[in-house]
C-alpha cells in the first residue's frame, strides 16, 4: 500500500524508535491520526519540550532539568559512595528501596563491540573525573549479562589502581523462588557466591 507522503514520513520516524517495528509504527501512526487535534498537539509539545529542557546531570550523567540533578545536589546524600548503573531508569529501581544514601553514575550503555559500543561511547571518562574527589567505594550495579559483567571488569581494572574499593551487586537465587524451577546459571552463581551462616 502507498501512504500519503506525510503519513509515510510519520511511520518512518516512529519506526526509528527502539522496539517499534514496521507493524507497530503503522498502528501508532493511524492511532495518532485518529486522536483529537489538541491531544496530538500536546504530544508534539511534550516531545520537543522534554528534548529541549532536559540534559545530562553534570555529575552523574542522569537525565535532569537542572545543571545538577536532585540527587547530586541533595546535601544528605553521601558523595563518597557511587553506584554505577547502565541506564537512568536503573536509578529508580535502587531509589525505590530507600536504602542507598550515596550517589549514582549513569554509563548510558554497556560495552558491546558487536553494537559498536566501546569505552569512548560510555560516560566512563566522566566517572574517572569524579573519582579525583574523595570517593571510597564504587558499587557496580550493571546487569548480570556477559556485557554487564565485562563492563564491570573493565571498570574495576581502571578504578582499583586509584585506591578506591570496587564492589559488584551479588547475584543469586531470587528470594521466594523455588530451587527446582530456578535457571541453571542463577543456581550456579548462587552456589559460587554462597556465604557462611
Amino acid at each position, binding site marked *: 500500500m502507498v501512504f500519503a507522503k506525510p503519513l509515510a514520513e510519520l511511520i518512518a520516524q516512529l519506526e526509528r524508535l527502539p522496539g517499534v517495528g514496521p507493524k507497530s509504527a503503522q498502528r501508532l501512526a493511524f492511532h495518532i491520526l485518529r486522536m483529537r487535534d489538541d491531544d496530538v498537539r500536546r504530544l508534539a509539545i511534550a516531545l520537543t519540550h522534554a528534548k529541549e529542557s532536559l540534559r545530562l546531570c553534570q555529575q552523574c550523567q542522569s537525565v535532569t532539568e537542572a545543571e545538577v540533578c536532585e540527587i547530586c545536589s541533595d546535601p544528605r546524600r553521601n558523595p563518597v559512595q557511587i553506584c554505577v548503573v547502565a541506564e537512568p531508569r536503573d536509578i529508580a529501581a535502587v531509589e525505590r528501596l530507600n536504602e542507598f544514601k550515596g550517589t549514582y553514575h549513569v554509563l548510558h550503555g554497556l*560495552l*558491546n*563491540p*558487536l553494537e*559498536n559500543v*566501546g*569505552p*569512548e561511547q560510555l560516560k566512563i571518562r566522566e566517572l574517572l573525573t569524579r573519582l579525583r574527589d574523595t570517593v571510597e567505594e564504587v558499587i557496580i550495579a550493571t546487569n548480570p549479562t*556477559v*556485557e554487564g*559483567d*565485562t*563492563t564491570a*571488569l*573493565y571498570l574495576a*581494572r581502571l578504578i582499583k589502581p586509584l585506591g578506591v574499593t570496587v564492589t559488584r551487586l551479588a547475584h543469586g537465587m531470587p528470594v521466594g523462588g523455588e530451587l*527446582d*524451577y*530456578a*535457571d*541453571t*546459571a*542463577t543456581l*550456579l552463581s548462587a552456589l559460587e557466591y554462597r556465604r557462611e551462616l
Partner: protein
Amino acid sequence: MTEREPIRVSEMTLHDFRNYESETIHPAPGVNLICGENAQGKTNCLEAISLLSTGRLLRGSKDSLAIRHGATQARVSATLNPMGSALAVQLALGSRKKVLVNSVSLPRASDVIGRLPTICFSSQDLGIATGEPSERRHFLDTELAQIYPAYLRHLTIYRRALEQRNALLKQAQEGSFYPEAFEAWEDQMVEHGTEIRRIRQDWITWLNPVAQSAHQRLAPGEGFLLTYEPREQDLALALSSRREDLARGTTTCGPHRDELLIEVGGKAVRTFGSQGQQRTSVISLKLAVLESAREVFGFPPVLLLDDVFSDLDQNRRSALVSAALNEGGQVFLTCTEPGQVGGELLRSSTIFLVQSGRMGHHEATL
C-alpha cells in the same frame, strides 16, 4: 556409588512435531525398537526425546523447522518415571521456545538439561573420527553440557566474549584500535576458557582407560589413545599478544581451536585409520561416554541409537547391543529391518512400527 532407579520416558505425546500430527506412545522401561521404512519418522521420534532432554533439536536444526508443515506450533510432552513428573517443549512460529516442568515454564530452554539424561548415537557420529577438529569439539561440548551444567555456562560466556573480541579485531582492521578495550573481554575468555579446558582435560583423562577397555573388547590387541591437545599452553599470554589475530581479524587461540586426538595403533585414526578402525574408535568413545554419564548421574541415561546397525559388522553390532542391554536403562533403537537386530535383543524388545508419522505398538511376535 549406589545406583538410583533410572529416569525413563513412560509416555510421550507428539503434536504437530515434524511429520507427526498427534501421536502418543507408551515406551517400555527396557529396549524399544522403532522400526519402519525410510522417511517414516524414526529419527523424528528420537529427536523428540532428545529435545525433551536438551531443549534443542538434533544437529542444530532451527526450531521452526520442526513444526509440522502447515501447523503453527508443535508440542512434545512426556511423563517421566519413577518421579511421575511432566516435561513439555512447545515450539511456535514467531515466538520463543517454551520448556515446562510440571506446567511451570523454565527461564531458559537449556535449564531443562539434567532432568532426562540421554546419550545419542547415530551413524553421523562417525564424523567424530573422520571429520574436522570442530566435529570433535562439538562432541566434547554437547556431551559435557549434558553432564555438567557449569560447563555450558562457561561455554556460553566464553563464546559471547569471543564474538565480542572478534568484533574488536574487525574494527581494528578498519582503523579504530583501542588496546584497552580488549582487556576486559580477554579476561572473560581467560577465566572461562581455562575452565572449559580444565573440564575437557579432566574428562578425557577419566574417559581414556574406560574407552581403552571398550576398545580392547572390540579390537583385541589394538592400542587406543585419547589426547586432549590445547592449541597453546598459556591462553592469557596468547590473547594479549594479539599480533596474528589483528592481521587475520579473528581469534586464533583458545579452546575453540583445540583438538581431541584419537589414535589407534599409535596413529591418528582420522588420517591413517581404516574405515573399520574409525567406526570402532567412535563406538569405544561413545561407550565410555555412557559410562561417564552413568557415573555422574548414578543411573544409566536413556540411550538413543539411531540407525547404528546399517553399517556395522556382526562383531561391533553385538558389542553395542550387549552394552545397551547391560546398562539396564531405557533404550530407543531405530532400524529399517528388525532382522538386523538379532534374536537376543529382539526377544527383549518392545516394538513400534512407524509409518508416515503414525506409530503402531507391536507385540514382539517376530
